[in-house]
């Protein structure tokens, strides 16, 4: 079975840390955004963009690249962060998050190279991914994969199950769904607001191969992606149910839907960033814009 080397592990962990760091920078500076759902995806995105996916920042529309659609498009800070880290845009661009002519609040194809679709309303991305996977089949491209990241709460949406049904019907084993099962949605816990268990059974009954992993364990993430791509390509799409912690890395945000959408003030952002650095064993690095007062016309907060 495929195994990350110690060097790879160290590298990916640092990338995951940077994804978290840039996400907080972005959200604090724009005074808008979703910390919880950005943090829970950090390891997933790190492995995808720095290990698993075929990509070329110089040729963002390379025909045989892998495509990623962030169906939970409010997780945009983490995606913009990883794209910046991977060289799709200069890192400074993250400070244009939610600015006129900058990076849209929810991922938008025109915002940055490397973004493959436009989102915002939950539940729609898997259908777009199904269409892309069909398109790749039509173009006889056997290498590219379409990866779609969904939220757990998002899986309340019927559109997800329409897409799931059709992906199995059309044997789209070039499609990999990843559910960021971080146990919380916007206003509470998944089990409380709208339970989705038995979750793996749902996907199985809809005709998918199911892998369940700890979504913060880089080794498991890498292995699941490898398995989905090379081992389980048996005529059915694969879903990776990634058990994660919403807000993972900041104590007050962990499993806490109150930090689903909320922008920290500069001091809180600073403290959060220092905490994240400590938690992951990096030198403390505070909020880079701490000196700049909040310049926005309103303290928007995000909720």
């Amino acid at each position, binding site marked *: 079975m495929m195994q990350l080397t110690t060097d790879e592990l160290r590298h990916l962990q640092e990338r995951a840390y940077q994804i978290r760091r840039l996400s907080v920078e972005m959200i604090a500076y724009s005074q808008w955004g979703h910390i919880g759902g950005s943090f829970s995806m950090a390891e997933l995105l790190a492995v995808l963009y720095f290990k698993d996916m075929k990509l070329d920042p110089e040729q963002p529309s390379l025909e045989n690249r892998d495509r990623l659609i962030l169906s939970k498009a409010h997780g945009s800070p983490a995606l913009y962060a990883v794209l910046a880290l991977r060289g799709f845009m200069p890192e400074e661009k993250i400070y244009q998050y939610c600015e006129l002519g900058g990076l849209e609040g929810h991922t938008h194809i025109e915002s940055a190279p490397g973004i493959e679709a436009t989102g915002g309303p939950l539940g729609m991305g898997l*259908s*777009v991914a199904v*269409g892309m996977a069909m398109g790749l089949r039509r*173009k006889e491209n056997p290498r590219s994969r*379409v990866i779609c990241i969904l939220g757990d709460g998002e899986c309340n949406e019927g*559109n997800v199950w329409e897409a799931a049904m059709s992906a199995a019907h059309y044997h789209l084993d070039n499609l990999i769904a990843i559910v960021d099962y971080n146990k919380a949605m916007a206003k509470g816990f998944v089990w409380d607001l709208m339970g989705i268990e038995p979750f793996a059974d749902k996907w199985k009954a809809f005709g998918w191969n199911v892998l369940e992993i700890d979504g913060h364990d880089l080794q498991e993430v890498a292995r699941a992606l490898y398995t989905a791509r090379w081992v389980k390509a048996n005529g059915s799409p694969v879903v990776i149910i990634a058990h994660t912690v919403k807000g993972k890395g900041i104590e007050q945000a962990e499993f806490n839907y109150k930090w689903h959408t909320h922008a920290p003030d500069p001091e809180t952002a600073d403290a959060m960033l220092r905490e994240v650095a400590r938690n992951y064993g990096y030198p403390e690095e505070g909020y880079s814009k701490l000196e700049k007062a909040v310049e926005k016309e309103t303290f928007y907060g995000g909720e």
Partner: protein
Amino acid sequence: MAENKTNTEEFRDAFGKTLIELGKENPKIVFLDADLHTSTKATGFKQTFPDRFVQVGIAEQNLFGIAAGLAFEGFVPFPSTFAAFASRRALDQIAISICFPNINVKIPGSYCGVPTSRAGGSHNCIEDLAVMRALPNMKVADPGSNEDLRQIMKTAVATPGPVYFRVTRYAVPELFGPEHRFEWGKGVVLRPGSDVTLFGTGVMTHFCLEAAGILAEQAIQAEVVHLASVKPIDNKLIVESALRTGCAVTAENATIYGGLGDAVSQVLAEAHPVPVHRIGVRDQFVESGGIEELFALHQMTPQDIANAALQVIRKKAKSEQEAI
């Protein structure tokens, strides 16, 4: 320009044929069906290009999402369902997965308005023009005849970005010859006149021509302007014609809230205010009934258009009086 030939082919038949024609010209065209292809008349396309026909089942949200994905991969998808479901069932998908990124998806809305008739209020879709018009980047067309539909479809494929066009389950005499070309934002004067302009779209243009005939018997010269392109709309021609005639009637096979009538009223209000009367469904569900019966019930017949014309002509006369 207007040639009246008898024609018993419904729009959907012309749609089916043109689809094959376009399919031959453009290998990127893919047809997506949501369990309705024999009704929408895409069966010929399916038989001719079995590999380019995708069945998604009864799942319209997925239909439009898949279309977006295929468009991102360079295809030209035609996701097809009844107008009712295109405009109401998957509007979020159409707006955000398709219109916002401004991608190349061509949406035929089948079974529009009154002529869907016996299926009743849930199917006799009157909202699509208003709803689609409200979406940024969306272009909207309602053809007046089969040749018009054919040209709209050709133009739709040649135009990048999202397009919504109507395919009504109805037959009207052909308005155009083979030289006809459709252009976005361009209307056509089908019959010149000086007393009133009848602005029609879709099947109602034919009724406008009949209304002009009725009015001619009373020595009233009605100008008939066909506005297949509901969005963008032909501001210039609308104003020019109103300058000539001084009053207008609009006629659409849809609700008068938000469609052609509002569009024309607004163009005129902005540029050259004249009396306008709107013909269309007046904020009711079009319940089951016979086609002609329903046109009568909703006061959408050629006679109703003629009566409306007389009304606006009277208003024009009155305001001219006042101005003097």
